[in-house]
């Protein structure tokens, strides 16, 4: 019986040892994984998890708080960490010798008396009848071992048998709950045991802590005090009075005011004499004096005066805020564009159109850019070819030509010229036959037999055919300053500077582009 018992015990022990080995393996895995996690360092989560942990290894005096347990040195941390990690699986129901009791109010204490043997190897109790001692000091008796056969049968019958693990330390069978099996499974796979736990979030937290984003210390409290004697400089904003301008701070005494300043501060007799020569205002207000001992210091002669003046400064001196505008005078200058911005600007003269004898008063380019007309003070209008500076045509007028303007339409090469009181519309002679024909048609006007116009004012304009210059001549009553064509070439306006305020301009429905109509309708509208 004894032998069989022993055998059974041995067998059981072997089984147990196997089981413990497997559990040990599991625990090794878990240990490793947990250690790996631990190396990443976040202890905070574990803290909570291990709150209800009893690592029985710790026979610390009294009950040790989880926090204290952690703070008990690095090694302790490591161990507690590993034990905490181990504690996660099955909530430390698989107790190993190296688990320590952390808190006494854990759930396991309500169960059967726990073995308090600690690190004592269980082999020593092999021959004994008890497994160890409970917390009260009583022996914990070994339970009756089942026969192998019985236990095998029990294994087969019981569907939950795979969950049962024999806890050697406590000499009992422990059944893992579903959550616990899940945890174990997860650990075997190498994942974190707790499903909700995300190690990557932990990593983030770790990195943040390392970088200093998350701080553990409490935020500093704002110092809750204020200056009793307000600083004049800063108090000005706080006062609501817009007109209150505090007096300037009196200067603190420096080296010169010392009763025994360095020798270089003290003026020599010559310097003192020279002060007499200066004006009252230029003299230094304070002349440093040297006294070898405190008792030889006389009274400060200006004491009353200084304090009186300070009082004046404080209450009797009107201070006004002067609004000074700080304008940099350079900023008032208009900003001229730099030379580079103006590029391409003409820098070299390549072509010269020579021919005029007097100053050139005005030039105008034809619509296509092939010709230029210029009017000059020598009384001529010249037509130039742009490319070669060749003068193609010259018109003589006798008077100073004020202004020339080409008709903007390329089909009508008509040149308007202002000479004295006349505006001439000239046929420039350019273009092919067709264009010439049209221009000639347009530039034909018959002398009006009866005056036609609106009758508001006496018309001062007269139209004449000018054969000498091949065109039309429009006489004004005053000298014409300039002539401008409308963009469409139908109208043109002339400007006569009469008085300062009034400018006459009249629109002539003249060159309407109904080129079929030879008859010209003339309406002159004059504005004053």
């Amino acid at each position, binding site marked *: 019986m004894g032998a069989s018992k022993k055998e059974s015990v041995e067998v059981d022990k072997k089984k147990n040892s196997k089981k413990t080995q497997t559990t040990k393996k599991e625990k090794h895995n878990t240990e490793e994984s947990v250690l790996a996690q631990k190396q990443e360092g976040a202890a905070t989560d574990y803290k909570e998890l291990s709150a209800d942990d009893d690592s029985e290894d710790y026979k610390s005096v009294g009950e040790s708080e989880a926090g204290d347990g952690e703070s008990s040195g690095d090694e302790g941390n490591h161990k507690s960490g590993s034990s905490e990690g181990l504690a996660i699986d099955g909530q430390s129901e698989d107790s190993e010798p190296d688990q320590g009791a952390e808190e006494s109010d854990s759930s396991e204490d309500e169960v059967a008396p726990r073995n308090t043997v600690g690190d004592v190897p269980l082999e020593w109790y092999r021959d004994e009848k008890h497994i160890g001692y409970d917390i009260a000091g009583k022996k914990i008796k070994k339970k009756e071992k089942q026969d192998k056969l019985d236990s095998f049968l029990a294994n087969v019958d019981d569907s939950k048998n795979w969950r049962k693990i024999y806890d050697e330390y406590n000499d009992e069978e422990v059944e893992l709950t579903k959550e616990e099996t899940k945890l174990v499974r997860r650990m075997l796979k190498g994942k974190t045991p707790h499903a909700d736990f995300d190690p990557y979030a932990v990593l983030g937290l770790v990195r943040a802590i390392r970088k200093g984003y998350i701080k553990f210390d409490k935020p500093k409290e704002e110092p809750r005090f204020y200056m009793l004697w307000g600083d004049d400089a800063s108090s000005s904003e706080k006062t609501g009075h817009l007109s209150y301008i505090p007096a300037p701070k009196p200067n603190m005494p420096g080296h010169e005011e010392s009763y025994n300043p360095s020798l270089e501060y003290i003026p020599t007799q010559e310097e003192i004499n020279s002060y007499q020569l200066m004006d009252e205002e230029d003299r230094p207000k304070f002349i440093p004096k040297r006294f070898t001992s405190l008792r030889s210091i006389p009274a400060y002669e200006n004491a009353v005066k200084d304090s009186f003046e300070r009082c004046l400064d404080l209450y009797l001196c009107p201070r006004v805020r002067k609004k000074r505008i700080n304008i940099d005078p350079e900023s008032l200058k208009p900003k001229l564009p730099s030379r580079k911005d103006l590029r391409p600007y003409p820098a070299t003269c390549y*072509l010269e159109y020579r021919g005029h004898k007097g100053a050139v008063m005005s030039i105008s380019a034809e619509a296509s850019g092939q010709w230029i007309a210029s009017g000059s003070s020598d009384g001529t209008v010249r037509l130039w070819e742009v490319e070669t500076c060749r003068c193609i045509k010259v018109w003589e007028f006798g008077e100073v030509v004020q202004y020339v303007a080409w008709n903007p339409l390329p089909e009508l090469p008509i040149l308007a010229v202002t000479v004295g009181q006349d505006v001439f519309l000239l046929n420039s002679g350019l273009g092919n036959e067709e264009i010439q024909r049209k221009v000639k048609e347009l530039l034909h006007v018959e002398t009006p037999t009866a005056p036609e116009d609106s009758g508001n004012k006496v018309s001062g304009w007269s139209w004449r055919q000018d054969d000498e210059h091949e065109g039309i001549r429009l006489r004004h009553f005053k000298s014409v300053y300039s002539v401008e064509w409308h963009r469409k070439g139908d109208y043109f306006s002339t400007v006569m500077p009469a008085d300062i305020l009034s400018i006459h301009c009249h629109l002539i429905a003249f060159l309407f582009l109904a080129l079929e109509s030879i008859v010209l309708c003339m309406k002159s509208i004059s504005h004053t």
Partner: protein
Amino acid sequence: MDGDVEERRVQARFITKLKPPYKVPYTSIAIPANVTRFGLSTIVNSLLKAGNDEWESQPFDFLIDGELVRLPLEQFVLAKGISAEKVLEIEYIRAVAPQKEDEPSLHDDWVSAVDGSCPRFIFTGCYDSFGRVWKAAGECTHILEGHRDGITSVTIVNPEGADSVTVATASKDQSLRLWKFDTEEHLDQPAKIRAFKVLRGHNASVQSVAAQASGNMICSGSWDCTINLWRTNLSDTEGDLVSIKKRKVKNNVEESQMEVIKNLTSVARVCKEAITGEALSTLVGHTQCVSAVHWPEHSTIYSASWDHSVRRWDVETGKDLSNIFCGKALNCLHVGGEGSSLIAAGGSDPILRIWDPRKPGTSAPIYQFSSHNSWISACKWHAKSLFHLLSASYDGKVMLWDLRTAWPLAIIDSHEDKVLCADWWKGDSVISGGVDSKLCISSGIYVQ
């Protein structure tokens, strides 16, 4: 002289592509290192003289590593980083410079266009609206009348065939005319010729004209920003001109003076009216005056314009294939050089630019020649050479350029006023016409 300063010497060997008697022996000789081109030329001449007693000195030009030597030899070698230890291979070519200036042929007005592509004659266009054919300096053989305004550009359409040559003229009267004449006949007086075809279609002055190599078509660029293509239809109009040559001209004047305007009316009545031609197609794309056109290949036309661009057109489709933009209004354009694809263009600044459109990347000019002082009015590649071209400018000078050096090879200063046009003639002469109404011929230019 300083006895301390030793004259350094360089080992050199002269090679040439010229034929004997220009060849010197192939041995290497030591020459002083500070010789200039003139010194090298004298050395070669003396070498040639040593081999041939009847040798007459000629100016030579020298190339080292494909670049013309323009500095003293020492400085050139230093600048190029050529090792002075080895024997220098100096290639010499005959100096490109005009040796003779013919007497200028006077016109009545500005000579605005000149064409020397046919070696038998020179064809000029003038602001007095007449085209003229010259056999040699001062010998005008034909006068082409018909235009109403100055001629802006001329081109020889079909130089083949001795008996009838076709030429085209473009004028400010917005038309082009085609003419045919015979170069072989001998005339005492210049013969007056009328156009056999008048091409109308442009709305503004026709600025330039160019002929296709085959002679069937011409293209013209105008101030109305378009390029028109015209057929020259040689077959229709052979019969008209036979009678014209026999007209007598009343005045006996020097061949270069032209005063027969009064006779024009009688002549005009006799010959038939020229037929009018319409444009075959129009190439639209430029936004300003098309100042120069060139038709080097059968299906490609190059055009330069005052809108700062050089465009390449495909004749069949009528679209512009590429557009080189330079910042200056261009006056002249010619395509030639290596592979007939280098584009030379000059415009309203004194720099002659050459582009290579085959080069990928930027469209910056590969060569820029800036020795002129004023606008460039004409530029022409030499027909046979890969490197030589000429340019004419408003500063009165015609310059001959070699791509291998930045300085002009020669400056021909025969005009007093602006030079409006220039061309090569007979492969060794340069002809130019300008505001001084002269046609100048400089000959004796050896261009290989």
